[in-house]
């Protein structure tokens, strides 16, 4: 499970007219990851799928626009698979284009209604504003012998410039209301020749005239009723237009559903476009296929293609390693942990997939740091409760909760109470030194395994020199083990020991010499870099090991926090006691639970992954038939 799935590079030569069939066959196997590199043969330089892709994109965009107005409830089942050739796709695109032309006119009608309604609203707001003014509104509607009035809306951002321009044309601009991004203005100026100067300015400023209704001498309530009636009429028109559209669109629904289905079937060839090249009637495509699926792929092509084809496969070359996609581990139980691993990176081809190791070590550390039967049960139940909202992640919470419960049994802790259950092992606070020793041992084991995996990964990609001499390689591991040996001696007998000291010095000198050899810089700079790096190696390994003390520190912290809450609760009355214990437990669950989660992730990413996991791979994304349309 830790080892990557072996992959093959396949190259397929087919006749150009067989491309749609080939794409369907490849999609049906769900094992072909396209390789977009152009072929080495320079004559294969045409792009046979480009026109198909452009037609597809246009058709899909048209369908999306049409279904905005004629919504399709059902998503077509992919059902029987058939080949969509270019002629069929073009015909569909033309039909969708014609249909969109007609549908577009309905959209325009809706748009006009929206505009009219907006104008009525603005008119209503303007007149409400005018009621506070003691002026004859009829004056604003009429052009007098000497004056002309423009009442209307102008975008606020054009206001200042329009004010200057109006003054140049001998007009005065008055803002009587600002609403949204528009200002309501009255422009007054002399009637006559200057009108022609102002008209283009008003047009450029997007000025919109606000008609002043007739019969303004009526009661305000009657005017408001008029506006309400107008808006009601617009709403009726909108409903009527929607009904007309629904009736008009009904006969097209089945055909639109079929169009969606056709586009789903055409998608594989479109996806392949970037990796397709051709010369005359010969088309070339290449990709990555899991080694065990090559035979199945060839059989699929043989059954589908009527014309001859050529399929060759080979192992990936060393220089192609970064291009080979990694097939993810397919396990429902590991899926949530894979999500967290992928936050760091995707395993490069050849690298050990750290997901199973991550899952086990994560749960052990989380459980030890947050061991409590009650809290664990709450976490597990909360995760189960959220399974519909977090279908891909809820198992993570369930496992974390169970781990916490198991360690809760070992520590004898239920919601912080240590007297209810007898500890299967012991309470962390009863022997903190032992807890620290366990955490230290765990950390050493963790770092050694991480180094061994790093060494294996370098060997797997054909870098034996790196496996021995690079950072976190074999020599580095030797230094670490000797350092621990010496440290153990120092702690138990008071002496670091000659052999461990020689090993430490020897391994550090070897690392420094390797680094010196590979650095290209002036001697002074090289000396400085090598000295700092060597010192860094010692500090990093020492601090990383001590970093694991937090595993026990948090288990102690959990007990200490509970004690603090019980002390507080003990100072309250019986009701206060219950409330404090409940709130305290919520506090522990949320705050401490969150912190422990972050600390474990930190240990995994920094102390573990940085030693053995490059994470610079990319995921295997095979060509497949989409089960749901993009536009659905």
């Amino acid at each position, binding site marked *: 499970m830790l080892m990557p799935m072996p992959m093959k590079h396949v190259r397929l030569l087919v006749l150009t007219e067989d491309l749609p069939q080939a794409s369907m066959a490849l999609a049906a196997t769900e094992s072909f990851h396209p390789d977009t590199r152009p072929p080495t043969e320079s004559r294969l330089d045409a792009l046979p799928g480009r026109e198909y892709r452009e037609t597809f994109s246009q058709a899909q*965009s*048209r369908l999306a626009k049409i279904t905005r107005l004629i919504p399709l409830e059902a998503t077509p089942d992919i059902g029987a698979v058939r080949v969509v050739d270019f002629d069929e796709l073009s015909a569909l695109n033309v039909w969708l*284009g014609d249909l*969109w*032309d007609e549908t*577009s006119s309905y*959209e*325009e009608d809706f*748009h006009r209604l929206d505009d009219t309604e907006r104008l009525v609203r603005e008119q209503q707001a303007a007149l409400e504003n005018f009621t506070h003014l003691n002026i004859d509104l009829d004056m604003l509607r009429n052009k007098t012998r000497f004056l002309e009035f423009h009442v209307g809306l102008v*975008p606020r*951002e*054009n206001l*200042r*410039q*329009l004010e*200057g*321009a*109006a*003054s*140049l*044309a001998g007009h005065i601009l008055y803002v009587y209301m600002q609403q949204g*991004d528009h200002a309501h203005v009255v422009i007054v100026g002399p009637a006559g020749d200057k009108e022609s*100067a*102002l008209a*283009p*300015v008003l*047009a*450029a*400023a*997007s000025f*919109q005239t606000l008609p002043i209704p007739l019969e303004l001498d009526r009661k305000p309530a009657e005017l408001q009723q008029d506006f309400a009636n107008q808006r009601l009429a617009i709403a009726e028109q909108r409903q009527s237009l929607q009904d007309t559209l629904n009736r008009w669109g009904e006969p097209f629904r089945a055909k639109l559903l079929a169009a969606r289905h056709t586009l789903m079937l055409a998608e594989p060839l479109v996806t392949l476009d970037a990796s397709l090249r051709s010369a005359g009637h010969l088309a070339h495509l290449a990709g990555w296929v899991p080694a065990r699926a090559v035979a199945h792929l060839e059989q699929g092509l043989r059954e589908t293609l009527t014309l001859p084809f050529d399929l060759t496969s080979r192992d990936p070359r060393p220089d192609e390693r970064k291009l080979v996609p990694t097939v993810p581990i397919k396990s429902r139980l590991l899926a949530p942990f894979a999500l967290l691993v992928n936050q760091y990176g995707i395993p490069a081809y050849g690298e050990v997939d750290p997901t199973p190791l991550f899952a086990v070590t994560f749960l052990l550390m989380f459980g030890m740091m947050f061991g409590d039967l009650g809290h664990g049960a709450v976490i597990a139940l909360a995760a189960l409760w959220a399974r519909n909202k977090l279908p891909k992640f809820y198992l993570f919470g369930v496992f974390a909760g169970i781990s916490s419960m198991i360690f809760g049994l070992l520590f004898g802790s239920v919601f912080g109470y240590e007297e209810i259950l007898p500890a299967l092992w012991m309470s962390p606070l009863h022997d903190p030194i032992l807890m620290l020793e366990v955490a230290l041992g765990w950390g050493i084991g963790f770092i050694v395994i991480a180094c061994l995996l790093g060494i294996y990964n370098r060997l797997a990609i054909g870098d034996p020199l790196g496996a021995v001499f690079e950072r976190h390689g074999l020599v580095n591991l030797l230094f670490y083990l000797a350092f621990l040996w010496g440290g153990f001696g120092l702690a138990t007998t008071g002496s670091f020991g000659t052999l461990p000291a020689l090993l430490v010095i020897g391994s550090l000198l070897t690392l420094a010499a390797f680094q010196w050899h590979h650095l290209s810089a002036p001697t002074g700079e090289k000396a400085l870099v090598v000295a700092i790096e060597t010192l860094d190696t010692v500090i990093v390994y020492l601090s990383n090991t001590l970093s694991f003390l937090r595993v026990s520190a948090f288990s102690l912290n959990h007990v200490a926090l509970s004690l603090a809450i019980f002390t507080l609760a003990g100072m309250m009355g019986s009701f206060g006691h219950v409330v404090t214990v409940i709130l305290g437990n919520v506090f522990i669950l949320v705050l401490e639970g969150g912190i422990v989660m972050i600390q474990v992730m930190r240990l995994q990413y920094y102390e573990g992954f940085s030693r053995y996991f490059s994470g610079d791979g990319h995921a295997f994304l095979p060509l497949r038939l989409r089960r749901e349309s993009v536009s659905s």
Partner: protein
Amino acid sequence: MSNAAAQAYLNTRVSVMSTRLFAPELIERLPRMTLAELAEHFGLSAILDEQPSAATRGRAIEQSLLQVLMSELQVLARPMNASERSLVLAWGRKYALFNLKTLLRGKLYDLDQQEIRDHLFDLPDTIRLSHQELFRAENALELLRQLETGPYRQIARQAREVYEKHREPFALEGAIDQRYYTGIVRQIMGSDNHHLDSLRRLMGAELDRVALLWLLRFRFTYQLSASETYYQLVPSTRLLTRERLLHLVNLDTFERILEALPAPLDSLLADSKSIGEVQQRIGRYTQLETRGILSRSQSAVARALAYLMLRESDLLMLFAVVRGRLLQFPDATIKAALELTQPSCAESRAA
């Protein structure tokens, strides 16, 4: 990275990149260079490709020069903080606005889709207009509807009038340019005190140039009224402020406007005989101001923007020479075109 460190890094970057600006000797030699020499000196191998037409080759060169500018813009924008980056990107967004104008003109006049596409610049994501739906619009009405729902909804009404009354989209394109410059001014006025003076000086010089040229063209070439001309202008943050422009547009002759200009523009442009001459003189002055900012400003952001403006000017010159050579114009014509090529001229493509 701390602010001081980011400024130091950006300043160093700008200084290193400034060595790419064309030296005076190269500018002198440019109009005499053959296509082969241009291709070798600037790595423009597409010029020598015999297959496509001169127009296609010209477009390919224009696109590749633009890519040079855009990639340098992105390199300079990377170490900046969000507001500084936004200002530099806003300056570069003029090319997205060229695309918008091309698209509007193309759709409003029902031009061939392929032809429209061929004239669109390929831009990086950070510069490209976000409302991609505009590009997918299949007819003018659909485009107008898209326009009305996006950030350019304020010009949509004008666009609709242009479409419905079959008007020349001149005012529409003017409105786009106006929004472009007012947007930049707004960003500058909101910038950090450390950069404010330098940026105001830099963009003020550019806005003085643009405002004066627009004023002269609108008043005397297009014969627009004073109020209409004023409406289309963008007041500068330096010399040609709102009040000055209100005064200048009301003057009725070319000579009176030049006489009424504030110092140092009055002496600089005195006795100019045509708008072309004014363009040359004020262009040189703006370049000097920009170079001054590049070499002396304390603000790394202003220096970066000044570098980009000068670099754009160089690349425009280079493109003018390439296009002249592709169209087999005589050396004298190319030289004359070079003298008119100005930096950051948003109207150069629209006009």
